[in-house]
């Protein structure tokens, strides 16, 4: 008898299924006309429009069939729906520690693994920059709950500080790094003061404006920042005072001469990779420690309820400012590193999209989750790269053109299946029962 009931249900839903699939196909059609149906082609220096309605028809038909099949399967096996997507295994403290340890071991070994190449190391360095930025922004957004859309401003301050101090004062990376962090932190406080009263959307808009101000200043203050041309010739960090150059400046030995190596870019890249790895790990240890201190708990309390914080005698002004300053400082460190890694910086590297990506990393990773930030950074930085890789493959090459679409789809997918981020687990900063067991 239950089989009969299921059969009847499926039959009743038949028209509904068709309607739903037709709706999905209709939406696809609307989207596909500009995206797939029309293609701009350059012919003899002019633009002509190529129509590809055949491809478009295939896309629409595919969506219709897939949507229909998907709904049919759901109607036939309704029990499947209660599964509500996939679950990461519950991460308790021990598992989390093991995963983190494995990740660190992998990161340390990466340059010497068989599949490693210059491309992989360069990609991993980019990922680590975003991981570090994500951990920095996590203090502001994830812990203190202050939505900051202009985080890239602090990244830019760090980068330009190092570029300028190297140019004018011949300052070494290792001296510029702390100065860049402190200067970015001061900028954080400077931005923090006027926006302290604002919350949520209003705060987001003001920080967005701040990011744009920094961008526009960099672009237009030509005598200092070089304007759109940017600043070039930024030195790489030295290894215990030994530069990574072909010929040694007077009074120094190059890294290559000292170790008896031939000149090649690999050692420099691997060194840069380890520098950012160490910086990121320090950032992680620092923010994890802060979370367990009164200031970290006050940030989280502020995120939960500002009014209750005031009633408990917590000064909301200094608490917010400290979150802004520490987030900005970490962004400044990452900026210094970015400048030294690239050798060249221009305002183009510090646009709103960078802020958006870092924010997406924090949100997709799961607000306040350190490991989530790493996962999200890997996904968001490597995904466009994978798309780029496929661009040369003949058949899937078309997909390569749509790599930003792939990127968007991945973000939508994460939000659909894991609306609170990849890792939504919050580890308490204090644990009564665990403490008492330990005592």
């Amino acid at each position, binding site marked *: 008898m239950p089989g009969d009931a299921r059969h009847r249900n499926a039959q009743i839903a038949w028209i509904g299924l068709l309607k739903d699939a037709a709706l999905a196909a209709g939406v696809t059609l609307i989207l596909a006309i500009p995206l797939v149906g029309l293609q701009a082609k350059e012919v003899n220096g002019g633009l002509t429009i190529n129509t590809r309605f055949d491809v478009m028809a295939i896309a629409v038909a595919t969506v219709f069939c897939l949507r229909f099949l998907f709904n049919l399967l759901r109607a036939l096996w309704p029990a499947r729906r209660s599964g509500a997507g996939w679950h990461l295994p519950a991460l308790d403290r021990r598992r989390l520690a093991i995963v983190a340890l494995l990740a660190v071991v992998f990161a340390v070994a990466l340059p010497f693994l068989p599949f490693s190449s210059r491309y992989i190391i360069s990609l991993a360095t980019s990922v680590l920059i975003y991981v570090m930025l994500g951990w920095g922004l996590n203090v502001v957004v994830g812990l203190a709950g202050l939505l900051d859309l202009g985080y890239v401003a602090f990244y830019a301050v760090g980068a330009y500080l190092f570029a300028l101090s190297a140019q004018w004062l011949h300052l070494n990376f290792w001296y510029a790094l702390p100065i860049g962090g402190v200067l970015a932190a001061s900028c954080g406080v400077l931005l923090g003061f006027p926006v302290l009263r604002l919350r949520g959307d209003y705060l987001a808009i003001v920080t967005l404006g701040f990011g744009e101000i920094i961008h526009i200043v960099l672009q237009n203050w030509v005598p200092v920042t070089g304007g759109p041309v940017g600043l070039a010739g930024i030195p790489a960090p030295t290894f215990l005072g030994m530069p990574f150059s072909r010929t040694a400046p007077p009074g120094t030995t190059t890294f290559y001469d000292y170790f008896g190596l031939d000149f090649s870019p690999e050692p420099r890249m691997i060194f840069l990779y380890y520098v950012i790895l160490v910086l990121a790990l320090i950032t992680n240890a620092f923010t994890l420690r802060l979370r367990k201190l009164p200031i970290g708990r006050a940030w989280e309390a502020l995120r939960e309820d500002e009014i209750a914080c005031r009633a408990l005698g917590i000064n909301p002004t200094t608490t917010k400012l400290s979150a802004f300053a520490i987030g900005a400082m970490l962004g400044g460190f990452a900026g210094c590193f970015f400048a030294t890694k690239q050798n060249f910086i221009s305002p183009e590297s510090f646009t709103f999209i960078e802020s958006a990506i870092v924010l997406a990393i924090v949100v997709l990773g799961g607000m306040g989750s350190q490991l989530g930030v790493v996962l999200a950074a890997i996904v968001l930085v490597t995904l466009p790269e994978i798309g780029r890789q496929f661009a040369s493959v003949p058949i899937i090459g078309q997909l390569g053109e749509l790599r930003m679409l792939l990127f968007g789809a991945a973000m939508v997918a994460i939000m659909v299946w894991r609306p609170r981020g990849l890792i939504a687990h919050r580890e*308490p900063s204090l644990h009564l029962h665990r403490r008492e067991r330990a005592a």
Partner: protein
Amino acid sequence: MRDAKPPLLEVQHLTMRFGGLVAIDDLSFRAMPREITAIIGPNGAGKTTVFNCLTGFYRASVGRLHLHRPDGDFYLEQMDGFRIAREAGIARTFQNIRLFAGMTVLENLVVAQHNRLMRASLYTVGGLVGLPGYRRAEDAAVAKARQWLERIDLVKRADEPAGSLPYGAQRRLEIARAMCTEPVLLCLDEPAAGLNARESGELNELLRAIRDEYGIGVLLIEHDMTVVMGISDHVIVLDYGRKIADDTPEAVRADPAVIKAYLGEEESEELPLEVTSDRERKA
């Protein structure tokens, strides 16, 4: 006898205006240490506004809010909200519970000891390097929190998010959190709202214990008359922002002005003419 010892809190001529609306009109009262002073009145009488003025969420339009502490006097109308809690030592709870819902029960109680811990951690620097002084302060904070957890019977749930507690437990936790700031005056805004008879009985016990053991003053806004009459030492009745009674619970209960404010006016000759004539016709 009341005037023999100095009051803990002396409110003089407090007036609070919002534009043209006068929420509190020339209110003066006193709250004594080691006493529970209840503020009652119909909805919209201005009770919560009094609390918001006291705890610095509103700045009073007129008036003096004088807190007498053995170690000094504080004029609350001149202080910022968080300083009133930190320096003057006034803690409060809220009508709609304001716990840190995503944080654990224990964390809620430790956050309340923020200022002491912040000093112990040398404003984070000492905590970062792991000074032993900070460790000791944290242990002491947890021990104090544990003591309160035992008192409100939440030890077992200490590591669960505060938002997952049942309503009555959340009310108790909010009171414990306020007490963890070591106040001299505790302001409770409708602590018995939404509690069943057993829970409000437990609340009475808790408030009496707070008054007797910690020797602090309690200001209480409450609609539940069994709580008010059961535990208050003194009752102040507000109506339309004015004080209409200020006496012991027994005396207030019998006060005709209070009965009038709560139950409405008895029939009088001042009814509108149409109404009276209508009634006469019917009779």
